[in-house]
């Protein structure tokens, strides 16, 4: 019996095991990094990132582009009238019209969010496991909502502007459909997480299905629904801003027009307006959401 020997054997075993595991780990990392690099490199060359046809140096082109984007503001004449070259007023030469287009974008987003949200509430009750007992209905409603979520919003917008004609209506319909798809899922998840005991109590005291939903389920989910709806409104504002590019109304129409006439500085002016609009709506919506949550936690 020689105690040190088994110990050293054990240590050696352990060391060998550790070396093996480190080697395996390293190999895995190297293979992983190599695969990712190959995919990224192949993708980049396939999508012309290194293509010499683009003037070779993409950074140079981006610099030129940024230069063309910047407006010619003359510091001396910055606050002069619209007729003066180099003034801010000349840069925003069609401001009232752009403001009207921005307002239309907001209207489209609001109407689309409200109507889409209304439809989503209906769909959610048919998709939630705890209130819709018929599995087939649930399955069908869910699959349709999944499909609506997968089709890109602007593809829908093109189809709808072919059907409803160019203009704001096509944009609103697009937002309704997109909102329906995304909110129905969130709403049905909210319904599935409610406490069913109030509804059961109502049922036990003889209430019908609609009364059970109205007094047992709706009060529990209403604050959630409202805050999801406001979050969706924020997203819909930026969706609506892009819709005009395919002719579906709002400020995007002006963006498209600026590009058609190669007015790059106008494009930047509109971009800044979009940013301001989105920021304002975000702030208002955040304020409202905090109030809703505050009320909920107080109750």
């Amino acid at each position, binding site marked *: 019996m020689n105690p040190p020997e088994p110990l050293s054997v054990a240590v050696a075993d352990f060391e060998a095991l550790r070396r093996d595991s480190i080697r395996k780990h390293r190999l895995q990392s190297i293979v992983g990094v190599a695969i990712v690099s190959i995919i*990224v490199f192949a993708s980049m060359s396939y999508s012309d990132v290194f293509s010499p046809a683009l003037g070779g140096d993409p950074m140079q082109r981006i610099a030129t582009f940024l230069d063309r984007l910047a407006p010619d503001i003359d510091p001396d004449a910055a606050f002069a009238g619209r007729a003066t070259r180099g003034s801010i007023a000349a840069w925003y030469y069609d401001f009232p019209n752009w403001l009207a287009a921005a307002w239309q974008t907001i209207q489209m987003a609001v109407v689309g969010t409200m109507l889409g949200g209304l439809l989503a509430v209906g769909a959610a009750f048919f998709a939630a496991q705890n209130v819709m007992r018929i599995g087939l209905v649930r399955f069908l409603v869910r699959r349709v909502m999944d499909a609506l979520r997968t089709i890109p919003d602007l593809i829908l917008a*093109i189809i709808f502007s072919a059907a409803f004609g160019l203009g704001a209506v096509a944009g609103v319909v697009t937002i309704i459909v997109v909102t329906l798809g995304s909110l129905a899922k969130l709403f049905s998840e909210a319904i599935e997480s409610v406490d069913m005991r109030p509804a059961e109590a109502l049922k036990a005291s003889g209430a019908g299905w609609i009364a059970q939903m109205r007094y047992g389920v709706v009060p529990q989910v209403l604050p959630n629904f409202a805050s999801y709806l406001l979050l969706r409104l924020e997203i819909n504002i930026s969706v609506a801003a892009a819709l005009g590019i395919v002719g579906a109304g709002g400020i995007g129409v002006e963006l498209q027009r600026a590009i058609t006439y190669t007015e790059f500085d106008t494009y930047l002016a509109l971009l800044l307006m979009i940013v301001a609009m989105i920021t304002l709506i975000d702030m208002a919506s955040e304020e409202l959401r905090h109030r809703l949550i505050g009320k909920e936690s107080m109750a």
Partner: protein
Amino acid sequence: MNATVASARLIAPEALEPPVGRKVRPYAVAIALIVVLVWFCIDLEMTPAVFGKGLASLRRFIGAMIPPHDGGQPWRIVLALVETFAMAVSGTAIAAVFAAPLGVLAAKAVVRNAVIHFAVRRVMDLFRGIPALVWALILVSAVGLGPFAGVLALAFADIPRLAKLHAEAIENLDQRPLEALRAAGAGRLAAIRFAAVPQLAPIWSSQILYYLEQNFRNAAILGIVGAGGIGFALEERIRIFAFDQVAYIVLLYCVCVGILDWISSRIRARLT
């Protein structure tokens, strides 16, 4: 009125007879919302007539979608889908490269200087709302038609969003491993390498993968303005009312989205 109700009224008078304000408020909110809705609908010329006509042609379109048809060139569609995927990967990769330093700068835990991280945050918040298509529209005229404009558009749109997520991940790091290493005498770099990086790598990778999924969806629309990918093929076929081919492309695309989402969610599940 029996004794139970009377005693209930004593305990909680508001439960039986809510004050007028609380009774009226839900109706007031509902009426205000309906007024806004009707007003906006009138402004946008959303009349039942326009709606009815649109729905009728929509029904025709959907009727024309069945059965889907490949238009005789299925390989061109597959190639366009591959290009869409390549754009999504490239855009995500470029966004990831630029979002990492920005994310570090925007993290409160790293940059003690409040002015810097506040400024970085605000600028990113401002740009977060701009959709990729809005970038694509102008980049096409700046760098030319083709997928490269789309790649840049995706990257531009993602950098602020990804950087914000990265910064939040840094702020949510478990500080104890870092403290333990510092206490054991490790330098700042060593502490970051052995305590912060192992925590961050899976989270950041999973955020990047999530954006890859999103970008595959976003990349599909950029072709509308000539920035490469499947969007161009789709738009062209919608414009000539070839809805059977539209349905074919959309179905194929949905299958690809499903596969990519599945692979990505498998990888993300392994990461975290």
